[in-house]
């Protein structure tokens, strides 16, 4: 009982110990905020990554792809287990390439990832239609009336056609004049381009925040260049190029995708690359995410080895990125726990001072019959109490900061005039957070354990003090 009483009294009367509480509190609060923000980023990123990728992808080994994707999908559908678990499938044809376009009279070129899709099929697999800006939810490669108008401005009817129309004699038999030859304003193809290809952020006004500038409007021309194979078994490669008009933007809020992806009709890409009825991958969406592994395993056993197709889950595909996030979080946690360890050294120093200050009291307690273990427990409990109070306060502050982090960021941005969270990096509208009760618990337990660990040495010193020497201490 005396241990609890003395612990409590020491907590209330030794103001030096408040320093220990504050250091533990700051460490815990920082850990909670950083962990929540990192977890928020991680969760959001996973959501985005997964949102964009289908659950499972069957891929060919090389860019020449595989033949008869419809037949392969039919084979998969014929399997009772798979047909029960698969929601939708669609073939895609993917290849690297280059996009060229003019911006303010300057020719720009960028490397891109070209994906040939069937819009309706790709929409069923998910992670596509909802990211389109103009045809949101209803993916299509059709040009909007405004885009058509733009094409009309960019490609007016040939002057000779207009002269011919004017020179035609007026009708004499009362019949209506024959229609003029059709105006060939339709481009050979259309394209959905990543939002970040068509836009960039720039500080137009030196005092104002960065603004978004559009470089490609719907209906603008772009030229796509890629390769096609020909000759024996398509082994020889040659460039292929075509013009297309921008019909929509793809904005997933993942800069990696928005800055690199362009979508074209699957049949168009197959024709231009001389790959009729071929695809490089089949995207699969499953009904229940928990069956991911089972469906993957079943697909692996179903597909004959000589087809040389590999089956990946979306996590396999993004493995390095997900692992990088996880490693970053781990390293950050280690570094931040070192902050608490620094707080631990503070506890060690302050506790040592308190033990020296309390030397005579320790002698008195021993004279009254307190055991060495009892004295040890007083100081260990004291460390525990300081750690617990610090961790509790830190949790409250950390949780509050996490909940109001966007308000705090806005206030700091307004106050300092400097944008703390650059939204162009992730296109997140606000700082994502994910406050996990378990990680808060782990942080608390860790902080309290460190506080107790660092009080062991001074507590042992107190416990082993000789009672007579302690009583005579001045």
């Amino acid at each position, binding site marked *: *009982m005396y241990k609890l009483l*003395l612990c409590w009294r020491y907590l209330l009367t030794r103001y030096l110990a408040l320093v220990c509480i504050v250091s533990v509190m700051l460490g815990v609060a920082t850990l909670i905020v950083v962990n929540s923000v990192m977890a928020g980023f991680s969760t959001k990123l996973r959501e985005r990554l997964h949102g964009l990728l289908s659950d499972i992808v069957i891929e060919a080994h090389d860019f020449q792809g595989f033949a008869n994707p419809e037949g392969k999908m039919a084979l998969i559908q014929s399997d009772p287990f798979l047909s029960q678990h698969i929601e939708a499938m669609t073939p895609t044809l993917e290849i690297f390439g280059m996009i060229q376009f003019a911006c303010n009279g300057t020719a720009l070129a960028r490397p891109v990832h070209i994906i040939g899709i069937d819009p309706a099929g790709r929409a069923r697999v998910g992670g596509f239609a909802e990211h389109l800006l103009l045809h949101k939810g209803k993916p299509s490669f059709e040009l909007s009336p405004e885009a058509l108008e733009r094409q009309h401005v960019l490609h007016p009817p040939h002057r000779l056609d207009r002269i011919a129309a004017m020179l035609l004699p007026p009708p004499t038999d009362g019949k209506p004049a024959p229609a003029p030859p059709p105006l060939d304003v339709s481009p050979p193809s259309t394209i959905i381009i990543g939002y970040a290809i068509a836009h960039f952020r720039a500080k137009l006004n030196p005092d104002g925040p960065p603004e978004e500038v559009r470089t490609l409007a719907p209906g603008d021309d772009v030229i796509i260049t890629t390769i096609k194979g020909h000759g024996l078994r398509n082994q020889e490669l040659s460039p292929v190029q075509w013009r297309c008009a921008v019909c929509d933007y793809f904005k997933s809020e993942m800069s990696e995708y928005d800055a690199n992806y362009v979508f074209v009709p699957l049949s168009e890409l197959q024709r231009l690359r001389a790959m009729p009825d071929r695809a490089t991958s089949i995207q699969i969406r499953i009904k229940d995410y928990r069956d991911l592994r089972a469906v993957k395993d079943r697909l692996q056993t179903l597909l004959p080895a000589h087809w040389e197709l590999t089956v990946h889950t979306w996590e396999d595909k993004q493995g390095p990125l997900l692992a990088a996030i996880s490693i970053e979080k781990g390293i950050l946690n280690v570094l931040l726990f070192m902050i608490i360890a620094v707080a631990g050294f503070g506890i060690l120093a302050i506790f040592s001072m308190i033990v020296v200050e309390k030397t005579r009291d320790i002698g008195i307690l*021993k004279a009254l019959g307190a055991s060495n273990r009892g004295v040890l427990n007083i100081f260990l409990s004291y460390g525990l109490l300081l750690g617990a109070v610090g961790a509790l306060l830190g949790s409250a502050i950390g949780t509050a900061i996490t909940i109001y982090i966007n308000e705090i960021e806005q206030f700091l941005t307004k106050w300092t005039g400097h944008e703390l969270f650059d939204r162009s990096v992730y296109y997140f509208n606000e700082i994502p957070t994910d406050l996990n009760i378990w990680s808060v618990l782990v942080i608390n337990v860790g902080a309290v354990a460190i506080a107790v660990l660092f009080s062991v040495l001074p507590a042992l010193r107190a416990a082993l003090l000789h*009672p*007579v020497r302690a009583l005579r201490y001045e």
Partner: protein
Amino acid sequence: MLENLPLLAAVNLHKTYRKHAIEVPVLTGVDLEVFAGEFLSIVGSSGSGKSTLLHLLGTLDKPDAGRILFNTERIDNLPAEQRDRLRNETFGFIFQFYHLLPELTTLENVLMPKMIALSVRGWLRQRRTLKQHATELLDRVGLGHRLHHKPRELSGGEMQRAAIARALINRPRILLADEPTGNLDADKGLEIIRLLRDLNRQEQLTIIMVTHNMEIVGNTDRVVRLIKGRVEDATKSPSLLQPTMTG
């Protein structure tokens, strides 16, 4: 038969302190017997080993050689836990500088030995009775009006009376007092001695008091003097009681 045997006895006690490889012998064969109900004073010059002897008798320290017997049982070589229990239950200590815990109130200081003896559950079960007992003790030493005062709010005499109440809370067999009046003026010192005398007479409490104040030893049953690390029974040679002979 047992009545003729000493309650506490020291047999050929030796104790040497070492300071920077220099050995300072303090006790060189002390023999002492203390009988139940006796009020014994130990006198001697400064540094004669009075306090060391008291600490050895109260198991706060261990002798280098010799034995300490309580009720004819050897206690100096007991395991630490048993010596802790002896200090808690059998011996009561009072010191020259009172040694109250500054964070606790007078009442809590008095209850401290009980708190040390009891578990949390035991304390919670008995706390009302114990608090009442502690209050009665403080009333008896004249501090009934100072229950919730911190030691810094008490005078020297009051602090020593609180320390006596604390020493008595576990109803000890022997009270060990180390210069209990050393830090008090003559009147207050005399009050403390009268209080101890009353306790000795009314409760049959055995008291061993170390002091160098020759004016107060007259109130005790027997006086022994420590000379060169050995005991000389002063009551057998009254000249030892002359003030000129004391340090």
